[in-house]
Structure formats: structure tokens, C-alpha cells
């Protein structure tokens, strides 16, 4: 077995250390070692975005990164999105607009949309669709997701 590595990170604002084998992806570490099971495994090859997280502010697919690479980084996952039980405006808008059906893709869409609104607080429909192209949803047909993001952007008043 490859030597296990001790990795020090910050996850959703909390100092978090873990042990992992080099062959474990960040997604596997999040789900199987740390039990942050919000991030989902869809395709496991960087197409579907269900495992989207932010690493040092950059949106990535956690299936395409090794857990050991996370040393020293700040990670944001879906578990850090709601604030003390209060839904993030994006989560609220996804509920109100039915931006999900089966729900597997939803954590990834929410992380991706959060990253979008941080960079571009008032995106138009085209910008939303382009940004979310790395997230696949096989249920909704995307329209409801796009409307939810638009509504959240409007509710947030342009401030992410």
C-alpha cells in the first residue's frame, strides 16, 4: 500500500486533518474518510460536476484531484453552504423553483452556482448556462435550475 499521508486542510472554515492513501481522490476522502457525503460521485471522470467543491476559491471536480494534493488548502463543500440551519439564498431559490428532482446533481449545481455569483453577481441567462455546462442534470431539463440561479441572484441583490 502507498504510504498514507497526513494532510492538513481547512474545510468550511474549520481546521481539518486526515490520513489518506495517495490513490484516494479528494471526493473519496470527503465522503469515505470525513463523511462529508454531500458531494456526490456521478461520472468519476470530470464530466458531470456532481462532486464540485471549491479549493482555495477555485471551483473544481473533487474526483479529478487527489486528497493528498489538498495539503494546506481551504476547501468549501456543500455542507458549509447553509449558515446555522438557515438556507443559503441559492438553496432557498432551488427549493422554490424546484431546481431539482432526484437531487443527486444538486450539491454540485449549488457549489457551481455559488462560485458563479461570487464572480458575477448578476449573470444573464447565457452566462449561467455557460458556467453550469460542467454540471449535468438528467431530470430537470435545466430551465428550472437556471431560473433558480436567476432568482437567487436577484434576491441577493448583486452581492454574493
Amino acid at each position: 500500500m502507498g504510504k498514507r499521508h497526513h494532510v492538513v486542510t481547512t474545510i468550511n472554515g474549520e481546521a481539518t486533518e486526515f490520513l489518506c492513501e495517495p490513490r484516494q481522490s479528494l471526493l473519496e476522502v470527503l465522503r469515505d474518510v470525513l463523511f462529508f457525503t454531500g458531494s456526490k460521485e456521478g461520472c468519476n471522470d470530470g464530466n458531470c460536476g456532481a462532486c464540485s467543491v471549491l479549493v482555495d476559491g477555485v471551483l473544481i471536480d473533487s474526483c479529478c484531484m487527489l486528497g493528498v494534493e489538498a495539503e494546506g488548502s481551504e476547501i468549501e463543500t456543500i455542507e458549509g453552504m447553509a449558515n446555522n440551519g438557515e438556507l443559503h439564498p441559492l438553496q432557498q431559490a432551488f427549493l422554490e423553483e424546484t431546481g431539482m428532482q432526484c437531487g443527486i446533481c444538486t450539491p454540485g449545481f449549488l457549489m457551481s452556482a455559488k462560485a458563479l455569483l461570487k464572480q458575477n453577481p448578476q449573470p444573464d441567462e447565457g452566462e449561467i448556462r455557460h458556467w453550469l455546462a460542467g454540471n449535468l442534470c438528467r431530470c430537470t431539463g435545466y430551465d428550472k435550475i437556471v431560473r433558480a440561479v436567476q432568482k437567487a441572484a436577484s434576491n441577493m441583490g448583486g452581492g454574493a
Partner: protein
Amino acid sequence: MHDFDYCAPVSLQEAIGLMATHKGSANLLAGGTDLLIFMRARRKRPELVIDAKLIPELSEVKIDESGLTIGASVSCRAIYENAEIADLYPALIDSTTLIGGIQVQGRASLGGNLCNAAPSADTIPTLIAHGAVANVVSDKGERHIPVEEFCIAPGKTVLEANEILVNIFLPRPAENSAACFLRFIPRNEMDIAVANVAAFVELDSAGENFISARIAIGSVAPTPLFVAEAGDTLSGKPIDEESIMAAACIARDAASPIDDMRGTAEHRTQLVEVLTGRTIRTAVSRARGEA
């Protein structure tokens, strides 16, 4: 994934030593958007994965009078968010903004795209059009390889097992010059090129005649292809449809595509002609400062 060891050297010397010791059984890891997928599919089984992102020479972007040096592990996102690069090398922005989705762009590197040597690689035609050079190092010394000579077959490059791609150098474009890259896919994003083309043009100061041009085509041959004759035919010619279409036809005739699930050879051949014309026209507009 199979079992392997991981290390993250913080100096180029250390990485050179590791590559020399583990000759053939080590892989460098930048963004992982190709390597990790191949490892999962058992197409690659390195005993040691060497993280390239903490090596200063592989992580830096440098712009000076001579040109642009991009470390091999620099991500697409870091490239297209760099305003200076966008100003001088817009074709590189064309390329890096349409590789994968936002998530992939946050990790995928220019060096990785080159070393992966896909016939459809979206940055390689742009690098070739710019006359870019791949700077390589090993325990045996340095090599400076023109990008058009770097890929030799699908997934194969001239790199030896002990060699490291350190960075890619793009000469500073002359006055009145610019490049453009275009890709054809049947959707708007997240797809692999059916065909792609990059064109670099240098115009006279009046913006009326071509001084020189470099054209490269992709996804229509076993490797991205430099079509020197297509650019050469533009030298000294007036900027008009006759000149542009002559170059486009030469590029088209250089293509030797296959039929596959993404398109037919016939379609791809025609796409090369159309895309070559369009990239030249846009490059001309950019060189004139119109776009």
C-alpha cells in the same frame, strides 16, 4: 485506482532526480484531468506520482519583451484570468476558455494538454501558430522543442521517460500581428473538437497585406498539424478573400481525418477549410485593432 506513491517536490532539481531514479515508472501530475482519469481506467499505472504544482519553474507565468513563458502546470483558468496574456495572446484565451467546463479549467494545465498529445487538443494549434517552444529538462540536460515537433502520434510525444516539460515559451507577437483559434463542436461547450484551427497573421503597418502567417489544424490527423505552406502562401499577398481562401484550401488538403463518432472525414475536411478562413479573418481584425 491502483496503489502508488505520491510526492510533491519543491524544487526542479529534486523533480529531475526523482524522474531519473524512477525512469519510466513515474508520472508528473499537474491538473489531473487526464492523468487521474487514465489511472482509473488502468491506461496508466505509475508507481510514483510527482506533483508538479509546487515546483516554482513549472508554476510561474512570466511576460517580458521577448515573450510569454508559461509554467507547465499553470491552469487554464490562471491563463485566461491574466489580462496581459489576454491582451497579447487572445488565441490562447480562445483555447483555454473552451477546454472542458469551469471545473476542468480550474485544474487542467497547458503543459498537461501538450503532454497528453491528443489529436484534438485545443491549445496545441494555438501554440504552434504562435511558434511556441517547449522547454524540457532532465538529468542529461535541456532541450528546446518547437511545439509542432512535440507530438508524434495520438498520446505520444518526443519526451523521454526521464524528461520534464518545464514551460512553454511563446515569442512576443510583432506589431500588427495577432492570432485566433476556433473549434467546431455540435454544442456550445464541454465537448471534444470535431476539428479545430489556429491562425497567426502578421500584417504590414497599413494593415493591407500579409507579411507572414502560421496555420495549425487539429483533430484531423494523428497529431495537431502545422501546415507551413498554408501560412507561407499568404506572405506578401493582399488581405482579400482570394488570398484567404487559397490558404484555407491548402490547410484543407493537408488534413487526413478519420470517420468516428464525432464526425465524418468528409465533414472534418470541409470544416478545416471553413475554420481556417474564419480564423484568418478574425486574426486580421485583431491585428488591425478592430476586434
